């Protein structure tokens, strides 16, 4: 007999959760605190920011000085993963492009994310332009959960009374940096609303929480925080949930499929352990997917059975469809008035300090919906790339002697240029609504498996003219703001580069692949993120999104997951689980 066999656990958990990011982490937190026996499977290693973060390391502690050779956002960034994973390919179809970012680690992408924590607004849930499907609930129905997430996790911001940008329960925002004062002045002159950002960083103590500490402003949220001052699912949800004794985490467990019984109900999942390379099956009364929008869709499509021949929860045939990432386009330059500026610690928070919520009426713009702008700049820690392209900048301004310089150069004068230019950069990035389209999708590639033998995803994604027009508008806005503050060295992207519109997936806000709705023919999940076809199956990541606003997805994932977990608790008897 072959040694290759499947190890089947006899324990039946109340719930098994696949994934430990924002969605999985919140579901685990709520259910474990309610007394359910929960098993969480994470495809990567255990990760505790208190122990594993590279916070407060200097660039010289990295042989590549913090460059992104093995991690796209740099050597100290808290993402074990990237757009490419060894042995875990994905493919694309008909010459289209999609870039799929995966973090294999406890807490997933929440360990390194930008902590920009925006609520979607009333019209994001119930659009009035008729272009996309409505969500199966209103802003007012989700608002109490946003409020609870604000209180549980903490978010800074300011009350602004902007209808499309609902206010939350805010901690004080961090004071802006010098560059941001220039940006704000220039943006307001351009008619662009600019307000303090909203970020899940504890700028003050969080009421009732003794495990997390207030921020000490190192500007390194991307590395995850050793004192839990920012939100990571690992530090703020999963690790606290473990303390209840009701949650068990199995790390390095790559889930293969959702198992179903003869009635078509979910009965557990199968996974391959990366530790011993063996196959396992675990049983649970409820299966909750929080593996990320595309990974959860992949799991359902790979979970075919007699009862679910089109994949699990897919009688509607929408699983994998309506995939959409935010649009993104950016510009950077420098402020000549900041040459030779005074030095002080300007790290601030690792999230952004100011931003511009969408400020226009679309009716006259020629493209639907809108975007927000994130800003940055200042005296950041020099790392790989510092000083690059000086020959494009030092010829644009007079030297210390007041005379224009020949661009480029070398020697003592050049060395002094790097000092003069330090901290003069300004950066702006638009993040906009991309329309959820049936023709942008992921599906199972019929020919390709990953190193575990799991069939992989194949993507088909094309930007439409709407998104290019939006990116063009972003570039025009950036140009005006840059001009208003006298920024130099900025290049604005034109039609030849698609107005700098990033490839789909590059903004890492992908959502929509297992969408919810009231009509089982047009949606996979009901308004509680519960499968229409398989009542003990729930999805708690960004896959249930019907249509993303221009707002970053995480705060809505958290609110939705909390709401779904509370629904599960209230329905346990009815569900007979």
């Amino acid at each position: 007999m072959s040694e290759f066999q499947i190890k089947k656990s006899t324990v039946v958990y109340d719930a098994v959760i696949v994934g430990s990011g924002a969605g999985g982490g919140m579901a685990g937190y709520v259910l474990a605190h309610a007394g359910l026996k929960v098993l969480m499977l994470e495809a990567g290693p255990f990760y505790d920011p208190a122990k594993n973060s590279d916070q407060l390391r200097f660039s010289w502690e990295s042989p590549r000085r913090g460059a992104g050779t093995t991690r796209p956002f740099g050597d100290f960034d808290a993402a074990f993963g990237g757009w490419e994973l060894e042995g875990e390919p994905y493919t694309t179809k008909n010459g289209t492009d999609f870039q799929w970012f995966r973090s294999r680690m406890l807490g997933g992408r929440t360990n390194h994310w930008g902590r920009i924590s925006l609520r979607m607004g009333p019209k994001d849930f119930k659009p009035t332009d008729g272009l996309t499907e409505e969500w199966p609930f209103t802003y007012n129905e989700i608002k109490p959960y946003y409020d609870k997430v604000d209180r549980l996790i903490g978010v800074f911001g300011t009350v602004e009374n902007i209808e499309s940008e609902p206010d939350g329960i805010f901690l004080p925002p961090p004071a802006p940096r010098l560059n941001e004062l220039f940006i704000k002045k220039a943006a307001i002159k351009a008619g662009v609303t600019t307000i303090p950002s909203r970020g899940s960083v504890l700028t003050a103590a969080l009421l009732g929480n003794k495990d997390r500490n207030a921020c000490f402003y190192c500007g390194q949220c991307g590395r995850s925080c050793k004192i839990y001052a920012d939100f990571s699912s690992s530090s703020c949800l999963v690790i606290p949930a473990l303390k209840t004794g009701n949650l068990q985490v199995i790390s390095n467990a790559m889930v293969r499929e959702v198992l179903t019984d003869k009635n078509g109900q979910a009965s557990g999942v199968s996974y391959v352990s990366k530790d011993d390379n063996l196959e396992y099956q675990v049983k649970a009364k409820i299966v909750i997917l929080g593996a990320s929008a595309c990974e959860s869709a992949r799991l359902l499509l790979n979970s075919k059975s007699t009862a679910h021949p089109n994949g699990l929860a897919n009688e509607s045939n929408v699983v994998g469809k309506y995939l959409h990432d935010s649009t993104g386009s950016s510009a950077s330059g420098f402020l000549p008035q900041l040459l030779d500026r005074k030095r002080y610690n300007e790290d601030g928070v690792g999230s952004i300090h100011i931003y511009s919520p969408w400020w226009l009426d679309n009716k006259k713009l020629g493209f639907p919906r809108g975007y927000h702008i994130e800003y940055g700049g200042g005296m950041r820690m020099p790392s790989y790339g510092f000083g690059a392209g000086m020959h494009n900048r030092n010829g644009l301004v007079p030297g210390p002697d007041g005379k224009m310089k020949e661009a480029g150069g070398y020697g003592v004068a050049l060395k002094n240029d790097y000092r003069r230019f330090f901290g003069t950069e300004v950066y702006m990035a638009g993040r906009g609504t991309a329309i959820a389209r049936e023709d942008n999708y992921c599906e199972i590639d019929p020919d390709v498996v990953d190193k575990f033998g799991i069939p992989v995803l194949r993507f088909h994604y094309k930007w439409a003219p709407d998104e290019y027009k939006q990116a063009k508008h972003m570039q025009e806005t950036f140009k005006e703001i840059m001009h208003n503050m006298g920024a130099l060295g900025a290049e604005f992207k034109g039609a030849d580069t698609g107005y700098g519109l990033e490839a789909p997936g590059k903004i890492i806000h992908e959502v929509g692949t297992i969408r919810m709705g009231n009509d089982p023919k047009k949606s996979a999940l009901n308004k509680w993120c519960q499968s229409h076809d398989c009542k003990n199956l729930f999805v708690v990541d960004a896959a249930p999104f019907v249509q993303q606003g221009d707002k970053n997805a995480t705060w809505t994932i958290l609110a939705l997951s909390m709401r779904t977990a509370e629904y599960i608790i209230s329905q346990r008897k009815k569900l007979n689980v």
Partner: protein
Amino acid sequence: MNRRDSLKALGLGTLSTTLLLDACKPKPEKKVVAETPAEAQPQTPPQATDTNPGRQAWEIERDKQLQAQRFFTSAEMAAITILSDIIIPKDDKSCSASEAKVPDFIEFIAKDMPEHQVPLRGGLRWLDVQCLNHYNAIFAECKPAQRIELIDQIAYPKKAKPAMRQGVAFFNRMRDLVATGFFTSQIGMTDVGYAGNAPNPQWAGVPADVLKQYGFTSKV
């Protein structure tokens, strides 16, 4: 936990916090390493550490493998060292690029990012052939004045002759790598005056004198 406790949890007690904060205050000029070149030495050579819990095993293994390899020949390293010090020489504030171990960084980064290999190796060779044609010696064996005569033809992209554009591209790359290598070193970060990467719990935005300098009346 209050902030003091949280700093302790980080391994930064009251004493070390003070030291860290003090270390980041602007220093009097006389403490700058340029006047004490011996201080250029204690910089820890970059190496993968098994004790770093933030790294994945495959990353540690990869770094070890790269560090065991050698890409540039000793002749190439000699030229890189000369070029590094032409680009960032010692001045009255800090030491030269080679004293800050920039050539070692360039050796590592060429292995870490193979896309640098052909442009750097080819560029060095291009430089040697130019020097052989003009001065009958490779770059490293030219006289300093001859080297500068050649560098002047490739260091200024806008006025360089079209025939020198490959040299301009090479020198732009070298300039970028030398600047990054220097200013990301401990010496370079001190030089440029980066004051962060330390607990700064009282962050209150732009200091009052700086606000005034730039004509801002309020912080928000």
